[in-house]
């Protein structure tokens, strides 16, 4: 089985976001960047598929030099091959998908895995855009994946429950937390990843469809009101719920 997994490189969840000087992007200084947490589930699932069906796992990432760190993380977990699509440009989901599709058309994987969204722009588009551009089915926000011959059965999270989706290979899957428990790379894996070569590919020209005009911080709230310091404040709280918020 030929398995591809696409990863992005993002500031970790404890990061404080500061708007950069251009007023459109974040200031990356002082931030720790990590492999997108949802992509770790995708990498883990890719490795499990390889263990079950044999084959090869290729990881792809689009971006600046530092995205190679996430490719190396995937190497340390056990991925066979890595492709870095080089670009200095700030790409939107559409442009990212287009560049991935160029490479995926060469690799022709049976299954392509993504995280359900990257935790920077939170758009959750790239995986599904890639599927439609490749004219293959996709299932998003997947918490369980089963493959039999070319039949694919997935559980995906929906509001208030889950649904079972059936489809066929080749397919794009976007991973949700709960799909698996990602493995920790062992020392041998980490050491091997350091010297393992990454294939570099120059990016072709793409045109963004989204223009960022401004990045800003959410307005901070005025100081809240402390109603009390024990259970005696409950009456005041009910008063607030009833008279001020009119919710009960």
């Amino acid at each position, binding site marked *: 089985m030929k398995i591809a997994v696409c990863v992005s490189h993002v500031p970790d*969840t*404890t*990061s*404080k*976001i500061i*708007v950069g000087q251009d007023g459109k992007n*974040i200031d990356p200084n002082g931030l720790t960047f990590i492999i997108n*947490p949802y992509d770790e589930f995708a990498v883990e699932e890719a490795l499990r598929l390889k263990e079950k069906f044999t084959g090869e796992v290729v990881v792809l990432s689009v971006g600046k030099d530092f995205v190679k760190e996430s490719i190396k993380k995937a190497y340390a977990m056990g991925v066979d091959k890595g492709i870095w699509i080089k670009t200095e440009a700030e790409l939107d*989901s*559409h442009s990212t*998908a287009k560049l991935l599709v160029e490479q995926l058309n060469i690799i022709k994987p049976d299954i392509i895995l993504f995280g359900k969204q990257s*935790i*920077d722009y*939170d*758009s*959750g*588009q790239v995986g*599904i*855009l890639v599927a*439609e*551009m490749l004219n293959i*089915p*996709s*299932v*998003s926000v997947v918490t369980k994946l089963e493959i039999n011959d070319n039949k694919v059965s997935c559980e995906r999270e*929906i*509001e*208030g*429950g889950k*649904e*079972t*989706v059936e*489809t066929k290979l080749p*397919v794009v899957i976007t991973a949700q*937390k*709960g799909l698996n428990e990602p493995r920790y790379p062992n020392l041998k894996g980490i050491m091997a990843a350091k010297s393992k070569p990454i294939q570099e590919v120059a990016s072709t020209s793409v045109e963004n*469809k*989204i*223009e*960022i*005009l401004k*990045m*800003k*911080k*959410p307005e901070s*709230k005025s100081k*809240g*009101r*402390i109603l*009390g310091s*024990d*259970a005696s*404040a409950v*009456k005041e*709280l*009910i008063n607030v719920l*009833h008279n001020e*918020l009119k*919710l*009960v």
Partner: protein
Amino acid sequence: MKILVYIEQRENSIKKSSLEALSYANLLASSNNGEVVAVIIGGDLNNQLNELSKYGANKIIVCQDPKFEKYSSSAYSKILIDIIKKENANIIFLSATSLGKDLAPRLAAKLDAGLCSDCTSIVIENNDMIITRPVYAGKALIDVKLKSEIKIYTLRPNVFPLKEVTINAQKEEYKPELTDLDFISFVKEITLSKGKKDVAEADIIVTGGRGMKGPEHFHLIEELADLLGAAVGASRSVVDAGWRPHSEQVGQTGKTVSPTLYIACGVSGAIQHIAGMSSSKHIIAINKDKDAPIFQYADYGIVGDVFEVLPELIKELKVFLGK
């Protein structure tokens, strides 16, 4: 300006968030000489059309067939693309639900359209639609515009106001021509947790954090949620500890929510959690640590032990509500 709004329905009921999108489409169209087309797809829709006609669509396109009872990303996207082309719509609205977020990128790729996900504000300035949307799970916001001819937006639930409007909508049946290939991906089965509200859709959320001390104490959160008609939420540490399911997790790597009221019980307010809930309209925090970061974001706070405050609150609310 011609806005096409996809109306999502499940089990004979239209999603409220789709009607919010429709209401907002009507508001934009009526002040910009525009027109609004609502499209609904499903098995048997006759009981839903009356409600749908109250929210300002100039035209309602109905696509019903037992085969469309359950969602199929491949079939639904084909139907919508055909209708968008036929109607010459240049603006497409969907609600940012699990279905909307799955469907919208398929439309965008096929129509070579730009897609803006999870919009929380849409205004028109000098003929441009300017969108605000949260990024980094709400730690920052960006203003963006789309440059493509066809523009697609998913609107975050619970943000845009619902508004009834009297317009005599023209109704039209649409019969798509589909083959088996169009159903290559389909929903076979839906399993809903009975009677449970989802944090992504709820007007009120009651969240429990580490301060609840163990899964056995979450009955307090559940009871309070029940009384208020609220959904139960959980912080990341509580989910990671296995006390609550991931579907309840609020915050970065969980759900980003904007309810009318958010009640945080025993939640300290880690930055990842704040990101996911700080856009709630009103926030109440109950925590015994007066220095907990959550109090910086709360409109109302009780600095007290959840194990004293919650039982008292439940008791008093029952009396107040006559339950």
